[in-house]
């Protein structure tokens, strides 16, 4: 099979489904004469995107910024806390129930509190993105450490390695693929968090754009916002899937199972 054929085999089915869905959507809207202020068709949506592309671009950039800022904080914090939890049973026992409780709280419920502390704007969006994407990173990194192969530990122990040596030489490298694997899940969550916070408490961002458009009954613009949100989500997920693949070449050789 040539590279071209393989690419075709990989891309044709999803592309076909998307085209078919768009077609069905447009035809359905036309056949049933659904007005634009209830459900605009893809063409009307596209026209809205084109008409508002400056505003969309501006707000999408803002959302991207808050998403990535919150995600970066979550990466650093999640890696740190995950390693601490994986390293020390004491830290694990002390923090795990709290973390689970914290993760069970719907993050939308926290946004008003963030608004009280930080006011309307960028900070609550970054904070929400951070809060919502932090947990899966912690869990994944801790899992990587908790499932260290006893044989690897024996190799190091037989050399008289300390717990800290074992942590440095195999614990951290072993948890990295888990960390990378958690990134693509976490970045999608961070994005969701940022958009949610913007709809509740912001004057910028794609979430805010959609909310204000719906307040003005500019339904095609709402749908334009939805499409852009979906596209950004896919792009972020794909980008970090590639990052993961790049960074964990050996993990894909079946040496290590990847926790989701």
């Amino acid at each position, binding site marked *: 099979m040539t590279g071209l054929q393989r690419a075709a085999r990989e891309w044709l089915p999803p592309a076909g489904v998307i085209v078919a869905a768009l077609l069905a959507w447009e035809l359905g809207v036309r056949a049933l004469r659904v007005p634009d202020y209830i459900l605009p068709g893809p063409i009307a949506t596209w026209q809205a995107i084109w008409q508002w592309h400056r505003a969309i671009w501006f707000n999408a950039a803002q959302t991207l910024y808050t998403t990535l800022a919150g995600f970066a904080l979550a990466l650093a914090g999640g890696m740190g806390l995950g390693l601490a939890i994986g390293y020390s049973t004491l830290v694990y026992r002390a923090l795990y129930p709290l973390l689970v409780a914290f993760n069970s709280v719907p993050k939308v419920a926290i946004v008003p509190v963030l608004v009280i502390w930080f006011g309307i704007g960028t900070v609550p969006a970054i904070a929400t993105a951070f809060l919502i994407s932090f947990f899966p990173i912690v869990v994944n990194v801790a899992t990587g450490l908790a499932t260290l192969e006893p044989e690897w530990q*024996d190799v190091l122990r037989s050399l008289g390695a300390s717990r800290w040596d074992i942590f440095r030489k195999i614990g951290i490298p072993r948890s990295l693929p888990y960390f990378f694997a958690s990134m693509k899940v976490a970045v999608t969550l961070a994005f969701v968090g940022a958009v949610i916070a913007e709809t509740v408490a912001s004057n910028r961002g794609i979430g805010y754009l959609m909310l204000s458009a719906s307040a003005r009954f500019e339904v095609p613009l709402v749908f334009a916002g939805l499409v852009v949100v979906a596209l950004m989500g896919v792009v972020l997920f794909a980008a970090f899937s590639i990052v993961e693949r790049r960074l964990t070449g050996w993990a894909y050789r079946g*040496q290590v199972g990847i926790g989701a």
Partner: protein
Amino acid sequence: MPAGGRPADEAFVRFEGVTLDYAHDGRAVRAVEDISLSVRRGEFVVIAGPSGCGKTTLLKTAAGLVRPTRGEVRVGAAAVAGPLKIVGMAFQNPILLPWRRTLDNVLLPLEIVAPYRERYRREQAAYAARARELLAAVGLAGFEDRFPWQISGGQQQRASLCRALIHQPELLLLDEPFGALDAFTREDLWQVLQTLWMERRFTVILVTHDLREAIFLADTVYVMSARPGRLVSRTPVDLPRPRTLEDTFTPAFTATYHAIRRQVGEGRP
């Protein structure tokens, strides 16, 4: 190099009544029972026995990875209470770290064992040269930069042998290092190991379930019974060295083989 100038008949390693029970489902499972044997400095001892008789367990007591339930192992003057830096161990599986290239896998002990670890940064080039030399000695020249999953099982086993030797241990513990290999590779590695040992004269305890391998390599062959592992025989092998594969078909070799077999048979209940 270890062993230089010391009396050859000094007991370097002593197992004294080593018994080990594993706790399993709340019950004690006896893996090895009352093992006593001593190993001279520079001696090549092979312990042979059927699968599950406690060979790995016995080696782990010498490596300081598990404590005997009763009895003790002495290495040098002291009882083993934990891993010793003068010991190198190669495990039943190669267990190379998949994110390290072969060379870096071999260098691992030097990053951990004193006094090498303190000098590691300064001496890195010299250490790498030593690792390359060792890899070349086992036939892995040119494979230094491959990852473990890019080399064959036999090559991984060779690399694991290098890792056990790189910090120039006085005592080398080998757990069925060739058990999973095909006959050709296995016999090739017997010779590699024999050559290394004749050059460097470290003390070796190797466990195996292969009597031919045992006789080819050993100064002394011990045979263990099935679980719980007990010693059933001790046989000195005084075939001249270096031994060749042809030697394994000589009457002297075959006679030793049959003698050991017979003792094992008598040892059965």
